[in-house]
């Protein structure tokens, strides 16, 4: 396990929607070490504004040395990222943090909401390499269908069942993606969740109740991503602070203080 600061050339830019983009970067050293659930810290500007790197999950890595990032424009940093061109270089530090636990031959369920879908594609690919169960399912949620459809296609191509939900009902189940979880809990052994905190809480509660192993990927503001600044703390279930970048971002559901 090693970490690199790697100047990475952008080899492809895809805009899935006007605000959701996917960058493919040539970053062989990061790609070579990456594990599902890990993230990179990306420098979004050559100037000092914005100053801090942005944490982004590793969406996919490929044996040709590329890393993919999937992100949504929410502020100035992601806006600058969205304005990048093929051939530009991005300075990335990674792979960082503790990823998901991969178990052989376990039926699993992935639950992704919004950009929480990003790390799950990498995870799905790796899981399907070591575990092919007909019960294994991917649940995807988004505000509206257009944000979801292109991603759903790609999960389907991996050869596993996908169920979708949208807040506005424009595609799939009309409602929260977590509502799709109930039927599955009896059949899967492990649930991996990434998305907005309230959604992860609901999923975690359901799993904890049913005794199904559950891992969640947390988000907090990060300055370093390396465990050095101590800025990314969240209260843990045991009342002690956890550092999301180093102790996580992936945590067993029971380690999180959900009541916060």
């Amino acid at each position, binding site marked *: 396990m090693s970490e690199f600061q790697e100047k990475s050339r952008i080899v492809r830019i895809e805009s899935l929607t006007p605000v959701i983009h996917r960058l493919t970067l040539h970053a062989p050293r990061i790609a070579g070490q990456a594990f599902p659930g890990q993230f990179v810290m990306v*420098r979004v500007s050559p100037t*000092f504004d914005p100053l801090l*790197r942005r944490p982004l999950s590793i969406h996919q890595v490929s044996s040709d040395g590329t890393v993919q990032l999937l992100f949504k424009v929410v502020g100035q940093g992601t806006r600058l990222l969205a304005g990048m061109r093929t051939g530009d270089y991005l300075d990335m530090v990674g792979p960082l943090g503790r990823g998901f636990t991969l178990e052989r031959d376990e039926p699993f369920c992935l639950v992704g909401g919004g950009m929480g879908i990003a790390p799950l594609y990498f995870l799905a690919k790796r899981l399907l390499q070591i575990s092919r169960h007909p019960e294994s399912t991917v649940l995807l949620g988004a505000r509206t269908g257009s944000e979801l459809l292109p991603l759903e296609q790609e999960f389907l191509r991996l050869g596993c069942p996908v169920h979708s939900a949208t807040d506005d009902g424009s595609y799939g189940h009309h409602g929260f993606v977590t509502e799709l979880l109930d039927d599955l809990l009896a059949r899967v052994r492990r649930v991996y969740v990434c998305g907005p905190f309230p959604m992860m809480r609901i999923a975690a509660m359901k799993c904890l109740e049913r005794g199904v192993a559950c891992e969640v990927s947390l988000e907090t503001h990060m300055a370093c991503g390396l*465990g*050095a600044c101590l800025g*990314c*703390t*969240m209260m843990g279930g045991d009342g002690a602070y956890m550092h999301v970048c180093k102790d996580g971002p992936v945590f067993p559901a029971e380690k999180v203080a959900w009541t916060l």
Partner: protein
Amino acid sequence: MDPVSAKNDMDLRVRIGDLRLPNPVLTASGTFGYGREFAHLVDLHRLGGIVVKGISLEPRPGNPPPRIVETACGMLNAIGLENVGVERFVGEKLPWLRETGARIIVNILGDSVDEYARLAGRLAGVEGISGLEVNISCPNVKRGGVAFGTVPEMAASVTEAVKAESDVMVIVKLSPNVTDIVQMARAVEEAGADAVSLINTLIGMAIDIESRRPALANVIGGLSGPAIKPVALRMVYQVASSVRIPVIGIGGITTADDAIEFLLAGATAVQVGTANFYQPSAAEEIIDGITEYLARHGHLSVREIIGGLQTGKE
């Protein structure tokens, strides 16, 4: 000597009190963890030195989140001095770092003069510690929470107490949140400090206008990064012109050009802080860049440019 060999042979050594450093580029406390966090990204042994995260007698949990927020060309932090405490530092963190051969300076903090003294005493004789840096930006609980670093007499008494207990070089780290930084520097110089380092963070604040809450749970926090460099450089210049002990410049240093500004202003060494977060390679790039600058200007040693600013007033 041709430029290339001049570059390889460049003498970057500086002395802080009785401590000899191979080059003047250190990493600042609280921005480089206990060193190990950067082990994959930085050649720790190449650094002039590493100032570790501030250590207190007992472990501290720190402040509730949110603890950091980005600002224009800077960031605010209210970590709340979270640290593992001196015992775990000595037992768990120091041995690994010592093995790297890095020059280790331990940043210490306390709520009373007595705590500072006990920390210095506890660290005396511990192998692998090259110096102490005394963080006096902390509130003095016995004096109603006024920061040690804002009252000359209080700063002096912390300095004396630490010097009395310590067997290594002692740097006192000054707070910039004062009317007269020179007065503070003189007070700790007289009290026996071997060097001063400055600046610690400026006190600042940010508000989330949608929730109408402070962006930091602690309400106020410390401002660091390129935004504060002009203030830091001014203070370093003023202090370096007024004290005889070495001055270590800190504040927004990201590039070799930044570091050279501080050296010209009179700093004997510099510390790289927030830049470690957004540019982990910064400290090493600065060492290279200083070497290149010195070679280009025909210098044989970094010491030739320290205090080399020409104000036309000399």
